[in-house]
């Protein structure tokens, strides 16, 4: 077999020969299911957008309300991802390096945003950060809920586990001896952290940032309750899609969705690039 393969390298094979059965069945089913559930519906969206033509597409894109909604979605997601990078890294550090009572419980609760339905998170955060809520009343007369800041709060909640769970495993793998070497060579702790530890964590932090950002841009359920949803001020792009749909303005909804879809594909591509770069540099993820 191997001899044959080297003798005729031009021969193209879909798969490497194997004695394990079921390749056709499982791959066939997977592709069919993937096509029906994901590919055909998403292709339908792109096809509909193509039907709008450039002029129709640009009419939606240049609409002030669309631009503001996109700007708010991407802007708040960016700020929230930055907040998560800082605090998420601190949380991951505390969880991997220190032992304190309740550490296991805290470690488990970090995954809460993955498990808690977004609508529940939304109403809880809105009640908490509203001017008469437990946290909101502390900051009065400065308002958090029902302003763009409220959107950031919701997106920090949603994005936190993405950063912590991306950075934490890499931190656990860090070699303590490198830090000890830095210390014996005269580096103080701050220098060791900023010059030795952080560079090793950078790819994981960037990946966590990109994941939290991508999730935040598309987030809907947790945001709409706390945002106030004022057009041009605190209206996010996914909400504008829903509003356009309720107005039966399918062209508007489709065009905004396509823009968001394209941007999230670019994000996905960037995440893959970071990880490929990381593998080349460090040999593992």
């Amino acid at each position, binding site marked *: 077999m191997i001899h044959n393969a080297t003798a005729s390298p031009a021969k193209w094979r879909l798969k490497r020969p194997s004695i394990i059965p079921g390749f056709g069945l499982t791959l066939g089913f997977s592709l069919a299911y993937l096509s029906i559930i994901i590919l055909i519906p998403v292709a339908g*969206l792109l096809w509909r957008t193509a039907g709008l033509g450039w002029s129709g597409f640009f009419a939606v894109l240049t609409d002030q309300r669309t631009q503001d909604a996109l700007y708010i979605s991407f802007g708040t997601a960016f700020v929230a991802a930055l907040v998560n990078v800082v605090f998420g890294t601190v949380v991951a550090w505390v969880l991997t390096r220190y032992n304190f009572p309740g550490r296991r419980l805290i470690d*488990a609760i970090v995954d809460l945003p993955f498990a808690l339905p*977004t609508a529940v998170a939304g109403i809880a955060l809105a009640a908490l950060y509203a001017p008469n809520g437990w946290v909101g009343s502390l900051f009065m007369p400065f308002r958090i809920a029902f302003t763009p800041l409220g959107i950031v709060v919701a997106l920090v*909640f949603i994005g936190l586990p993405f950063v912590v769970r991306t950075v934490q495993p890499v931190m656990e793998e860090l070699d303590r001896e490198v830090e000890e070497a830095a210390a014996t060579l005269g580096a103080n702790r701050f220098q060791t952290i900023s010059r030795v530890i952080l560079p090793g964590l950078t790819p994981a932090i960037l990946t966590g940032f990109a994941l939290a950002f991508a*999730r935040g841009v598309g987030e809907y359920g947790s945001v709409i309750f706390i945002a106030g949803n004022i057009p041009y001020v605190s209206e996010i792009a996914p909400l504008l899609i829903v509003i356009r749909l309720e107005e039966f303005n399918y062209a508007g909804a489709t065009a905004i969705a396509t823009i968001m879809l394209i941007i999230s594909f670019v994000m996905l591509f960037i995440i893959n690039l970071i990880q490929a770069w990381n593998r080349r540099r460090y040999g593992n993820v």
Partner: protein
Amino acid sequence: MSEDARSVLGNPPPFRNPADERPLAKILLIGLALVFLAFFLLLPLVSVFVEAFRKGWSEYYEALIEPDAAAAIRLTLLVAAISVPLNLVFGLCASWAIAKFEFKGKSFLITLIDLPFSISPVISGLVYVLLFGSNSLLGPILKSQGITILFAVPGIVLATVFVTFPFVARELIPLMEDQGTGDEEAALSLGASGWQTFWYVTLPNIKWGLLYGVLLCNARAMGEFGAVSVVSGHIRGLTNTMPLHVEILYNEYNFVAAFAVASLLALLALVTLALKTLLELRFGAGAAGGRH
């Protein structure tokens, strides 16, 4: 060090590993992390239950047995009962094909499976509205056959399946890739059939990872809001799932009832987290999948 020297120098300072932070920095970092988590995770969770019980047990109980709430609970259970097994079967098939064979285009296939994670839930609902809506290609055909998908249970199931699509596959693929093909090849060479190999060799190897994936898939299926909200039509008592019912009650300023229904969903999240932590403790992070 002699007694004399010690008395001259005083007691040596307690040893501190130079590769550790100062105790004060440690305490500050732990404090910072705890305050941050309290404000963003713990307080929201606690407030759900406090708000739900604000007017006592009887109001809480009544909010849950009220007919519309009961219908929403039933619909949520039904949707999860259909969509989770579908994605379970898909997850098994996809991970078998991807982990046990080498073929062209594999990494592209994995990227496609991950796609729903990077699509906004609202867009996940929108694609089905465009596909089955009244002014779409399929809409009129389906209508003439008397089939309703949008604003009915099938649409809600489809949107839920879309959103929870990658969960099981995502847990199983890295796990099965780690395990390799040695066990299966041994079973097959000893005369086991393909099905026997799967049931008696592969399945016992992956059961905890599978359970983990199903748990996460189920939590998301029961809690999905954006995608379902777009396709459901919000018909009270008919196409309202629990998260949608929470939204309606909240927008009606019926906060106690909204938080009562929300508290059930929060309880589901807590049970999910507890089981997940238990799985990780017992079988190690490796046995129970990687990150999402």
